[in-house]
């Protein structure tokens, strides 16, 4: 092999470099603790289902509620819920920052739900709040 004295250390250095994150996180537990509502015990589905599939559930909700007008969700136990992100989900999980954002921030996803949907059914003003001026520029 030509230039082995450069290539082999180069490959070793490259391998060391790409395994730095693995080594850095080795032995550390990956544990996110979103704050659960204190006054409620059951979510619409079991914890594991919600963890794995809440995005699919929300996607099904938006399609069936808006497009087919089917606005009642019947869960696996037969209990009925209104298909609404703000009014049902966030009516219970009152603090988005302590629930949704904790996981989303950790895993680096940025869902755009809240560009339009309100973060609680008790929200007092839109975010960002209303301007006082009358200018309408970009």
């Amino acid at each position: 092999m030509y230039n082995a004295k450069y290539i082999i250390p180069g490959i070793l250095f490259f391998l060391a470099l790409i395994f730095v994150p693995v080594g850095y996180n080795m032995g550390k537990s990956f544990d996110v603790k979103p704050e659960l509502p204190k006054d409620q015990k059951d979510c619409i589905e079991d914890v594991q289902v919600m963890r794995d599939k809440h995005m699919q559930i929300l996607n099904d909700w938006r399609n069936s509620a808006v497009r087919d007008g089917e606005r009642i969700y019947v869960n696996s136990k037969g209990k009925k819920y209104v298909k609404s992100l703000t009014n049902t989900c966030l009516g219970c999980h009152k603090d988005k920052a302590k629930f949704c954002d904790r996981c989303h921030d950790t895993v680096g996803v940025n869902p755009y739900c809240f560009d339009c949907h309100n973060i609680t059914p008790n929200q007092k003003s839109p975010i960002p709040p209303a301007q006082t001026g009358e200018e309408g520029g970009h």
Partner: protein
Amino acid sequence: MKSNRREFLKLAAVSAMGVGAARLGFLGDAPAFAGPLPTAADFEKGFKAKHWGMAVFSAKFTPELIEKCRTACHTEHNVPDIPGKKQIKWFWGASYHEAFPTEQGQFLSEDVEHREFPLLCNHCEQPMCVRVCPTQATFQRPDGIVMMDFHRCIGCRYCMAGCPFGARSFNFQDPRPFIHNFNPHYPTRMRGVVEKCDFCAERLAIGKLPVCVEAAGGALVFGDLGDENSDIRKVLREHFAIRRKPDAGTSPSVYYIL
């Protein structure tokens, strides 16, 4: 007697303070606008129809009543209040010549000619906006409501070009800073999305009439055009009504009684 009056005045003063404090509620934690949340049981008693339609008793409409309906609608749906060309409108008023440009009446009754007409999305039977929408963000429900799925809108504005009635508005900027009467139970829109009246589909689903119909106090009649015995069909049987721009061929579901 004297001490009684003293007591009475004290009580009156305390009550007045109480009333005053109650009126200062807007400083407290009450949201700007919010009734109780609808429950699953409410959604089970939603209204159903073959084809929703509206009849407008235009003679009952004054600019003030149009403004009242407009405010009710725009508050319910978090429609931003943007002055000028970027205005967003779901419900608005216009003159006879703006509303019925194809009627071409030459010697019109002065009363009709100078009347202001309430306008909204016509929920056409053959909606142009639905035909041109490339993502099916605007679609027609089986009950005739021309509905918008804001999630799917890509902001191409074909529908705005297609609509013969100017019933659609585009969000040129983030609408949230311009929402002054905020309803936390209804979502807002984002920049780059077209919006319009949806006949209060979310209220019909819980068995409530559209807000403009409630605010108009009888000047707007809402009902099932597919049911011969409905209120709206009765009204249309008894009164002569016209529709906007019949030559556009879209067959609106909003009827104007002159």
